[in-house]
């Protein structure tokens, strides 16, 4: 019996990022709800990539607002708001640990704490990146065939193809990290989901309800600025990459705040 307690081989070595990232991956795939939400998001985005050119072909050409040329960005034009779904999933990854008590196990294993948070962010960002790249790639592969059925087409330069495919991945990955930060700051399951929705969707539109200057403020919120990366040229003068950098700025600020809070608070 004594051999059962003392290990047969040396049990492990120092904690490092490889270990903590593997640990977070095992935790992620260990819950069916995580893989289900991720899979659902992927299907949602693929469905949009198919539905948009389809809708274009069968649109009512009699109405004036339907009179526009097919454009590549339509394939990814719902990605902006779908980012909220992944942000909520990310927030749940953190808050479920607080609800279940798993957070204590996590911090006992990784007492420096921030590597665990960074690893969790890495996992959900990687998953989100793959969802964005795969769904947009499928969309761009299928869309020309659907459009051709109605004798339509869009032109897509290589630079834009790279921007939209990689951009989908980058945008969703960054949004999911915002979710990790909000979850870690709020710690309560319901409150973090509500905060994510209010902060990402409701707060940005409040300024523009009051004045035209408000619209200027709305441009700089995460979704509005970040989804410029996936929008047609000329949507906003700041352009796709400045827009994405603003989203990245929000993410860095929120994640830093989350890391500091995690380090300081009792678990």
């Amino acid at each position: 019996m004594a051999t059962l307690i003392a290990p047969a081989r040396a049990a492990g070595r120092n904690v490092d990022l490889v270990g903590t990232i593997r640990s977070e991956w095992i935790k992620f795939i260990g819950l069916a709800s995580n893989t289900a939400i991720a899979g659902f998001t992927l299907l949602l985005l693929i469905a949009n990539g198919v539905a948009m050119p389809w809708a274009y072909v069968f649109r009512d050409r009699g109405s004036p607002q339907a009179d526009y040329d097919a454009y590549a960005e339509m394939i990814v034009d719902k990605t902006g708001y779908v980012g909220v779904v992944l942000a909520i999933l990310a927030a749940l990854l953190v808050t479920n640990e607080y609800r279940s008590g798993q957070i204590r196990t996590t911090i006992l294993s990784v007492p420096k704490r921030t590597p665990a948070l960074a690893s969790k962010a890495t996992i959900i960002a990687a998953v989100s990146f793959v969802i964005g790249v795969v769904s947009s790639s499928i969309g761009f592969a299928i869309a020309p065939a659907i459009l051709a059925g109605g004798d339509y087409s869009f032109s897509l330069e290589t630079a834009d193809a790279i921007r939209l495919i990689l951009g989908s991945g980058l945008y969703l990955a960054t949004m999911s990290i915002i979710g990790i930060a909000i979850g870690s700051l709020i710690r309560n399951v319901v409150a973090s989901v509500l905060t994510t929705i209010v902060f990402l969707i409701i707060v940005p539109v409040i300024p523009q309800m009051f004045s035209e200057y408000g619209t200027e403020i709305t441009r700089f919120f995460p979704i509005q600025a970040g989804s410029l990366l996936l929008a047609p040229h000329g949507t906003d003068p700041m352009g796709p990459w400045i827009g994405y950098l603003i989203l990245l700025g929000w993410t860095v600020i929120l994640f830093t705040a989350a890391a500091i809070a995690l380090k300081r608070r009792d678990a």
Partner: protein
Amino acid sequence: MTIEVQNLSKRYGDRFAVRDVSFTVEPGKVTGFLGPNGAGKSTTMRSIVGLDRATSGQALIDGRQYAAYRAPLQHVGALLDAKAAHKSRTAWNYLTSIAATHHIPKSRVDEVLEATGLTSVAKKKVGGFSLGMGQRLGIAAALLGDPATLILDEPVNGLDPEGVTWVRTLLDRLASEGRTVFLSSHLLSELALIADHVIIIGRGEIIADSPIDALTAGASAKVRVRTPDTTALSNRIATSGVTITSSERQLLEIDGLSAEQIAIVAREADILLTELTPMHQTLEDAYNALTQDAVEYVSTKR
């Protein structure tokens, strides 16, 4: 490894959960941490492993803070909450996710599952576990890194008698291997069976810190004496260090002399004794007396 708690205080708002607590837990024996619910046991244990930030003071494990260890699970195994895994997670998933952080091989996960008797339910969801199985899973997690120190918060809580015996055997063996075993309980009867040494905490302050045998031995034991000649006997034995009380006629309770000493005095003075009963103080009495003092001390201060 030695756990040293030095002047540890933890305040939540304006209330101290523990106040200026100091003690040392030595390797090679089982040390019990005893106190009523809310006395500060969990807070102290959580502070030792860095889950709670101490307001002042510190806790060191072999001279270093828990968070300073680069592979903490190889030095310290802790069970702080029987429900520490998501309900939909399997035991195997829970343990392998912990093991991954320290690059602990899967074979070790099998070993601790085997050692805690959970092999057959390894692929079952934790949500379906009884409290006792949850405790076993927590102990399995604590053993993963083969640590020299074990810190277990209420590990016996929720276990059936067979489970209690199992924990006792396990902890005895771990201690005999030279490990430091520190476990808490709010039930003295549990600790009396398991622990070699006991630290008692009440209202956030340490009340006693002694080997479990000394707890009763050190406490004063009275002798009950019945005699028709109480005055003569009282005069004979009344010296400094001896207290005599009487609750009824012909009955004395004598503190400070053994039954044998009293019998000798009585024979020499030709006093008839009709009863001579050493009143063995139980561990429970000692504990109650100690915690009672703590309560009075706190209430008079306010």
